[in-house]
């Protein structure tokens, strides 16, 4: 099966007054059609930056941006900005941002905001765009009439649905979702996840679901990639990851997730995630790793395929 | 021994539309009653907009109640003037959600911890230093001499929250209300902080109200759970009881909505009620959950059910059990 998205050796560094932030440091991952990849990690590990790197929404102080990103076999990193904007961003890959439900334009009607990507990217006429908007709105479980409402008239859950509609309206292949439910209450969150599940099944969508909440990620994930300090340390199928991950960090992460239904002794990871400006030498996790060996302090391990489609970046393997 | 008694507590915020318009009431806390014993830890679980934060603030008398009674340690503090509540500020303290915001950025950790001591008239400088170092040690911010002169922006979020905890403990209060103390911290740090809180709570015998929306952490922390919906308590029970045998349909919905990390999750659609929590300005008549309740009956739309003890120590406010 041809890969839908193949990211190879992607780098994204920012220049700040305090130094160069290595937010995305040689990341490689892939996504098949209809598959959901969950990208999990603590805050500050670079996962949001990775999303922005893929969709090329770079800040002003970008220092390094290189690598290969193959979408349907074509390297979109080679596209100029204009081509990227026209053909990739929001056309093939769209994104739901963190806190998006609070970043809707308060003075524009919701319908107009959903229509915007169509009018901008596809040069659609107003009628054509609004037809698609109504479709999208219904898809996300809202009544058509909502397109004439303003964001403040909607609840949090409804706004999140609007933002999802915005991401879907151009019928992309891949939707990147960055913490789409973190501001919502539990029941609304479950409803949104149900919605995402349905959309995935109906349209064979591929998601990249970014979150720090491991339990919620299991609602969608077919594959899980764990990010730590700008690097991906493990990629595994959800069956393997949620039950028995390999990387010590992944293990500790899973052990720190409280469960409602099972009796589990909780574990926590001592210390704090490292700064992305001056990460530790060798393996970045070694200062907090219970299995650290001398080589971990010296050399960075390489990503190894320990099983088919199961990659781990650790000297233990 | 009952430390805190809350009886029919109400907090209604009045909001006026225009100068001559009608007055609306936002019923953040609407007839809440419960008892809290010495040394007992309770989780107050509710979604955002359920009124749990207002309830916490009202109990601490940072807000004045509209109606009802709050009796702390035998004293009725419902309508006491703020100036006369200084003793209460010492006996009941607050841990807030935002570690970054709860510490004044222009004071060292030492000064931050010194403030409550100065305010409560601990005049001896050496005594204060002793108490501050002791507090830092209790929250495991050691070596204390390293941390004391630091500023908040020099330490991590988890460490900041420990300072907030130290500040809440330093005067040896009888009651601590912790409002979502870990929701702004990284997942891996949450457990650490909650474990610390639980330890401190147990060893010092402090009564705790742990306000949260995350049910899955409650069982690691408290003996009892109170479920709050739309300004009211709908179920109160021991933690294990509640999780094993939730009675109120809302509690059941909450429990079914929370995922455990399980790869099978993605293959199923979760059974959850649709809709959102109601507005507190115009809550539904009768039982407030009835619009979303799968078991709604005619009486639920008409009359509000009363809280009933269905099993020992297990209270529900639902017509299914009347």
């Amino acid at each position, binding site marked *: 099966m041809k890969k839908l998205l193949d990211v190879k050796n992607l780098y994204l560094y920012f220049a700040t007054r305090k130094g160069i932030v290595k937010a995305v440091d040689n990341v490689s991952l892939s996504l098949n059609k209809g598959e959901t990849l969950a990208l999990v990690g603590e805050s500050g590990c670079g996962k949001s930056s990775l999303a922005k790197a893929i969709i090329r929404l770079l800040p002003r102080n970008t220092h390094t941006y290189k690598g290969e990103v193959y979408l349907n076999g074509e390297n979109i990193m080679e596209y100029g900005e204009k081509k990227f904007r026209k053909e990739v961003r929001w056309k093939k890959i769209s994104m739901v941002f963190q806190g998006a439900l609070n970043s809707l334009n308060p003075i524009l009607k919701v319908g107009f905001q959903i229509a915007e990507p169509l009018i901008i990217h596809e040069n659609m006429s107003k009628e054509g765009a609004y037809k698609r908007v109504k479709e999208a709105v219904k898809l996300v479980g809202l009544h058509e009439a909502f397109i004439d409402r303003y964001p403040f008239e909607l609840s949090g859950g409804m706004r999140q649905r609007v933002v999802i509609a915005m991401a879907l309206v151009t019928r992309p292949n891949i939707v990147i979702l960055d913490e789409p439910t973190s501001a919502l209450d539990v029941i609304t969150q479950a409803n949104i996840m149900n919605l995402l599940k349905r959309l995935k099944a109906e349209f064979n969508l591929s998601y990249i679901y970014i979150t720090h909440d491991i339990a919620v990620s299991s609602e969608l994930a077919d594959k899980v990639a764990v990010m730590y300090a700008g690097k991906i340390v493990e990629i595994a199928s959800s069956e393997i990851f949620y039950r028995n991950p390999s990387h010590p960090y992944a293990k500790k992460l899973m052990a720190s997730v409280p469960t409602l239904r099972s009796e589990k002794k909780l574990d926590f990871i001592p210390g704090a995630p490292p700064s992305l400006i001056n990460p530790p030498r060798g393996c970045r996790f070694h200062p907090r790793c219970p299995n650290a060996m001398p080589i971990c302090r010296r050399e960075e391990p390489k990503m190894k395929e320990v099983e088919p489609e199961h990659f781990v970046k650790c000297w233990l393997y | 021994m009952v430390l805190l008694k809350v009886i029919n507590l109400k907090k209604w915020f009045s909001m006026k539309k225009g100068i001559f318009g009608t007055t609306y009431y936002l019923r953040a806390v609407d007839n809440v009653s419960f008892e809290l014993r010495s040394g007992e830890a309770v989780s107050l679980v509710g979604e955002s907009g359920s009124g749990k934060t207002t309830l916490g603030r009202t109990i601490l008398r940072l807000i004045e109640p509209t109606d009802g009674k709050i009796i702390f340690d035998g004293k009725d503090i419902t309508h006491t003037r703020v100036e006369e509540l200084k003793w209460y500020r010492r006996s009941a303290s607050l841990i807030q*959600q935002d570690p970054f915001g709860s*510490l004044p950025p*222009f004071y060292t950790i030492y000064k931050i911890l010194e403030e409550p001591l100065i305010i409560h008239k601990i005049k001896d400088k050496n005594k204060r230093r002793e108490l501050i170092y002791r507090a830092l040690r209790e929250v495991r911010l050691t070596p204390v001499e390293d941390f004391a002169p630091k500023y908040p922006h020099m330490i991590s979020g988890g460490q900041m929250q420990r300072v907030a905890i130290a500040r809440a403990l330093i005067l040896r209060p009888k009651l601590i209300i912790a409002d979502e103390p870990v929701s702004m911290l990284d997942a891996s740090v949450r457990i650490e902080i909650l474990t610390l809180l639980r330890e401190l709570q147990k060893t010092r015998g402090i009564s705790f109200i742990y306000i949260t929306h995350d049910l899955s952490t409650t069982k690691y922390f408290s003996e009892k759970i109170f479920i709050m919906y739309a300004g009211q308590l709908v179920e109160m029970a021991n933690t294990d009881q509640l999780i094993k045998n939730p009675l109120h349909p809302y509690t059941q919905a909450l429990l079914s909505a929370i995922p455990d990390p399980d790869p099978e999750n993605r293959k199923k659609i979760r059974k959850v009620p649709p809709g959102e929590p109601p507005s507190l300005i115009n809550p539904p008549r009768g039982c407030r959950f009835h619009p979303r309740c799968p078991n709604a009956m005619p009486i639920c739309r008409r009359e509000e059910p009363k809280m009933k003890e269905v099993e020992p120590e297990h209270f529900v406010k639902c017509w299914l059990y009347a």
Partner: protein
Amino acid sequence: MIYLSTVGAEYSIKGIAKEILSYKSGVIGIAILLFLIFLSIYTVITIPYDQAIRMWRGEDRMWIENPRNAVPIWYKYIFGKNIPENIAIDSRDFGKKLGIVKVISDIPGTNFKKLYIEFTFTYPYDDFPSEINVFFFAKYNMNAPLLYIYWIKPNNRKIELLSYIVRSPREDILYLSINPVIGNKLQNYIEKTVGEESEVFIPVEMALFAVEDRTLLSSLTAKPLNGVYKVIIEGMLFEKDADIDVRLVVYGKAWGMFGTDDLRRDLLIPILWGTPVAISFGLSASLLISIIHLIIAVASGWYGKWVDSLIQRLTEIYMIIPFLSFLILIATFYKLNIVIILMIIIVLNIFGGGIKSTRALVMQIKNYPYIEAALAYGASSRRIIFLYIIPKILPPMVPGLISSVPGFVFLEAGLSFLGLGDPYLPTWGKVINDAFTGGAMYKGYYYWVLEPSLMLILTALAFAFLGFALDRIVNPKLKEM
């Protein structure tokens, strides 16, 4: 140590200084400001206040030896012309300096004495003097000495200027250049020598120093005759103990670092003294107003409700008041000194617009978690205001404070310029006022206007640059990543 805080970062004074210097605008601002402060301190030490006021009032003919409207000395280097400077010869220096001869000889058989004073000097300049005065210091009881004054040019022509009876003992001044007798005499002399009638009246100082040919007939073409000049004063003293000393001053056209004004006052004084006045006025106005604004804004933001509403309405009314008009009105009817001007400006600014932004900040901070936390552990309102809110709102106020200083400096200068300021204080505005009433722009005395203006601009620049840099530091959104 004062710790200012900005969004979680703390700075000590040293840290702030380093930050400021990391911006080019900060470096420039601080550099100029340090220069101005140094200038102020130097001025206050070397010319104490009372002395400065006295000198500026010009009592006791203090300035009499300065030329009027003289340009600064350094004009000579810029324009290359050898602009004349003062030449003063005093008979009291006889024996100590060259070129002076003084002989008093008794006339036998009488109480009378004969007097002979001779002055010799070189005139090397490219332009004529502005004025020539002779000062007489006579000692006598009843009978004043009688003197004859002669002028000898380098071409050895001797001209008798006039005969003169000293008018008063102690000091008497003969204003040679405006003396009509001498003027007429010289006019005749020149017309005779050159052989032509002149259409205009030739000024005395020109006649006495010019090349004697047709060029003399017009002031455009007249050239000074460089060379050795002699002035002879002969006369009689009529008392036994009588004595007289003479001082000749040939006034140049250039004087001092900053030139002089029409009252002969050295402009060094107001230029130098303007500095501490401007800076202290601007800073005190800005500081006091900022403090008042702070208090009002905090009260308004913290206590809310009717206090807030009242203060807000007052502020809005104040913002509409035409402030300068009021100021001019008051200044027209009342005599003002600089301290009263300061007070009035403060009163007219009490409920200024700055309150609104500070109040907004206070209301924002009021909702911060750490304020709630403070309430929870029992802090009183007063404690919270002074120890929690004010430290947080001070840093954002500092750039505004600094940036508004030039405004007040210009205000004071403007008032002085309109003639409504403190009349006795030597300030830059006063100099500009004097310059305009003295017709500086008409007569080409540009330095008179430019010098104070440049100082004003410099001061404004210093504070503006500094405020700019501070604004970038304090406002994190403007910070470069």
